[in-house]
């Protein structure tokens, strides 16, 4: 997929666990795993907003674009 989700990088920077992030943004760990493994087809603005709020970052820090081959 051309859109890369870099939640892992931000989690490492903030020294936060996946479980804690899932709990604070109010999604299940399974859904967070789907997001982290780039299996997600879409992300709601509300979820993105919460992730940015909790990780104290911009959407561009979490999402990246890579040209597909």
């Amino acid at each position, binding site marked *: 997929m051309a859109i890369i989700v870099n939640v892992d990088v931000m989690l490492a920077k903030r020294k936060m666990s996946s479980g804690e992030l899932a709990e604070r943004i109010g999604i299940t760990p399974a859904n967070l795993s789907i*997001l982290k493994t780039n299996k997600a087809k*879409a992300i*709601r603005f509300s979820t993105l907003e919460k992730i940015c709020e909790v990780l104290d970052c911009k959407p561009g820090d979490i999402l990246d674009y890579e040209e597909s081959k």
Partner: protein
Amino acid sequence: MKILGEKSLSSKVEKGLNILFFVITLLDIIVLGVAGITLFSEFNSSTMRDNYLFKIVLEAVISFIFIATGIVALFIIYQFIKIFRNLKESKLFEKKNTNYLNKVSNLSIIIGFLYFMCLVGISIFLSNYNSLDLLTDFLIKILILVFSVAFFIFGIGIKILNEVYKKAIEYKEENDFTI
């Protein structure tokens, strides 16, 4: 009334289809046997004139095309049994269902084509040997034509609905993977 799941309409339809499958199999075997015996006795008792032999061979070909439509119909019913089994287990958006529907559509078009071939065979080759009165002959031909067109339209309709179903599965997957 419950449509999907256990003890629902779909489970009852599945049971009905199982019975229909058994009945059609039985009918196919009986028709195959009767047609075979009739044609064989006709073949043996004929005076072996070329024209009469031609008629018997044609009758045999047309009879076996009709029987073939029954066998193809069995495959269609079997696909529907598998679809309704999935519906009974509440597996609505399964990719397998689209494969089954695709098979149903292709088989329906094949049946439509077989009926059409029968009609052509009867109209062109058997018209000289026709012992039926004009109205009965006309009604039988119209009936076969209606069957042919109906199966053809059914096949195309299922093909289009299958595409809609595929889109629905795609949207569901998208929805499931929206975080």
